[in-house]
């Protein structure tokens, strides 16, 4: 067997075409491609890739099954640890996790683990996902708050242990950020709902339109007979810069912009009644994955020009390399070392002008990135008619405010043990962005997994 140094490319929609539609950009491997890529895996005795996976997937094992042309077995191995493989295969930053540790990466490209994961999950979905095996039920109830990646993972693992699990979701569909945040062209909503259906088949009950902290408090749930609670409410409060004119019409938080488009399907307006206003010239402030999603969404909604405006340089961009490349290919433009200081609007209150300032990079700051310093007198005006502020999110206060005794960090996140999710309240656990601040889908899933194990130990009276 000859060893390829480079991985098999995954087919994708042509940038010129895809920028006109909301269909998925990356098209996935064919069986042949998957088998060929799988054959690159050396099946190391000491597989380092596994150490890079927050949900502990048996990576060489599932790839071996693929090599042997047994995708059904590959799917079984994968789902033993990962309840959301079609999602992870699409949105995980594998380059910083499993693939970063792959030995092939030392001299060439690492095995495309993420693409293989996606192939297996998609193959299984096309065949029809088999029903999970029944487990012996344990007569204890667990409430999960939030149906994003952390909540879904905790719920699925607890259901596999045998607990009676109910998820409480504030929005009208489950999925959290997978539904409202990540765009259709990167993560089709049908794929998300199918994976959630699998979790329902594990016996998990999902109550939508239920805002914990409002419809009922954690204390109410405990009183109603839940034995433990897991909080996975995510990073749900958008940050703004608090600069003059930021409340003008046409300036959205990334959450609003993406929620209107993804969750409410504003791109199908007026068939779907939720509107979105998109200008000719769109500026997205920030350079994370969410900013890339917003800039690419803007083009698909009909913007003529879409800019990423970022106060540091290309090197410091927190977005995944792949997302930045996709954005570039589609025509998103980048204004580095630039940040808005004020907005001006017309008489009706719509934003028209963004005043920006130029920055230079100084020494690295505490985050290890070089600190941007404003250049005096560098202000300039840029005409814009839509602005999307994508500079991160803080913790949503609804649960913390209504849960006495729950200790928070200075930033308002829930203080929880990294390994167990244990909080200051003995029967309450937490994980995901509500604990760490905005991070990735897979880290939230990892936290959900650890918390499920800790809740199991707690409910078995072993330890917290």
């Amino acid at each position, binding site marked *: 067997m000859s060893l390829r140094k480079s991985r098999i490319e995954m087919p994708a929609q042509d940038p010129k075409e895809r920028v006109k539609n909301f269909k998925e950009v990356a098209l996935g491997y064919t069986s042949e491609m998957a088998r060929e890529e799988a054959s690159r895996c050396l099946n190391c005795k000491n597989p380092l890739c596994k150490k890079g996976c927050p949900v502990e997937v048996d990576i060489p094992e599932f790839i071996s099954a693929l090599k042997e042309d047994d995708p059904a077995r590959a799917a079984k191995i994968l789902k033993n640890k990962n309840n959301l493989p079609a999602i992870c295969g699409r949105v995980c930053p594998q380059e910083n996790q499993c693939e970063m540790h792959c030995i092939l990466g030392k001299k060439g490209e690492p095995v495309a683990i993420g693409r293989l994961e996606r192939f297996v999950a998609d193959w299984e979905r096309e065949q029809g996902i088999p029903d999970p095996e029944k487990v012996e039920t344990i007569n204890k109830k667990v409430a999960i708050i939030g149906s994003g990646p952390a909540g879904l993972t905790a719920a699925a693992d607890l259901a596999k242990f045998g607990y009676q699990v109910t998820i409480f979701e504030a929005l009208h569909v489950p999925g959290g950020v997978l539904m409202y945040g990540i765009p259709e062209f990167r993560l089709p909503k049908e794929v998300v709902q199918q994976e959630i259906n699998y979790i329902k088949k594990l016996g998990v009950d999902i109550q939508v339109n239920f805002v914990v902290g*409002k419809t009922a408090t954690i204390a109410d749930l405990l009183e109603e007979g839940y034995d433990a609670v897991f909080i996975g409410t995510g990073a749900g409060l958008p940050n703004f810069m608090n600069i003059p004119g930021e409340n003008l019409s046409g300036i959205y938080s990334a959450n609003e912009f993406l929620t209107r488009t993804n969750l409410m399907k504003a791109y199908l307006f007026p068939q779907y009644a939720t509107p979105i206003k998109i200008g000719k010239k769109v500026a997205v402030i920030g350079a994370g994955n969410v900013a890339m999603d917003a800039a690419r969404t803007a083009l698909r909604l009909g913007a003529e020009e879409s800019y990423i405006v970022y106060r540091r340089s290309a090197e410091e961009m927190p977005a995944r390399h792949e997302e930045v490349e996709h954005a570039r290919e589609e025509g998103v433009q980048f204004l580095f070392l630039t940040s808005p200081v004020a907005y001006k609007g017309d008489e009706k209150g719509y934003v028209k002008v963004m005043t920006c300032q130029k920055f230079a990079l100084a020494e690295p700051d505490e985050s290890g990135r070089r600190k941007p310093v404003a250049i005096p007198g560098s202000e300039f005006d840029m005409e814009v008619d839509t602005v999307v502020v994508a500079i991160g999110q803080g913790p949503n206060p609804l649960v913390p405010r209504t849960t006495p005794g729950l200790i928070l960090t200075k930033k308002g996140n829930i203080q929880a043990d990294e390994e167990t999710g244990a909080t200051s309240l003995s029967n309450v656990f937490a994980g995901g962005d509500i604990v760490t601040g905005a991070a990735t889908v897979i880290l939230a899933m990892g936290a959900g997994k650890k918390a499920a194990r800790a809740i199991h130990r707690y409910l078995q009276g072993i330890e917290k």
Partner: protein
Amino acid sequence: MYEILKNEVLGSNIYLFEVKAARIAAKAEAGQFVIIRLHETAERIPLTIADYSREKGTITIIFQAVGASTRELAEYKAGQKILDLVGPLGVPSEIEKYGTVVCIGGGVGIAPIYPIARALKEAGNKVISIIGARSRDLLFWKEKMAAVSDELLIATDDGSEGRKGFVTDVLKDLLEKEKIERVWAIGPMVMMKAVANTTRPFAVKTIVSLNPIMVDGTGMCGACRVAVGKETKFACVDGPEFDGHEVDFDLAMKRLAIFKDEEQRILAKGQCGGGCGCH
């Protein structure tokens, strides 16, 4: 799914719906709201809770059928179901014993002022209520308001009922002759702005309830942001009630009109059936 138990026409284009929603009814307090999504392709819209019955497990919403979504809602009959209903959202009204308080409801704003007046009355306040509208066919709940008020005053723009003029005219007279501790005002943005301007020289704390555009209603999107004093607040989680003397009403009115053009497109679609190919 949430069943509509009653659909009652209260006045010209004003509708009252009683909806089965036991969990929301169990927690609802004066000043809070719900968000509804009628069906799969509908938008999420906020509506204030006008009343609730913990015993029956129902909430009452009252709305004016002016926009595309409210017109569609008005078509729903008793027995039909609303797909999504979530709440109670927002911070409840701050109910205490203040002394003499004035509760003002303008137009469809009479509905949300009612539970506040009732709660203030129950807390031992002397409640003077003022309700107003353009004309008498837009007034409703006079008896209900009278029952929870020590005094009920009425104003209509055209003089068809009560005093001819605005609620602010009635309010100004009250402020001049009596010591008022606090004022609540709910109604159109222009009315709430006028009330705040009327009470400002008297330095009487004035609470208004804002009804901006919302999407999730739980603090996630920031569509409902309003400028209050020097700060930006989210009406859904910090409000919907704010100190009227601090609210930037002009900004709030502009933000309410953001999607006016799109609203017209939706309404036009309803009129021509959407088969015209023009939208």
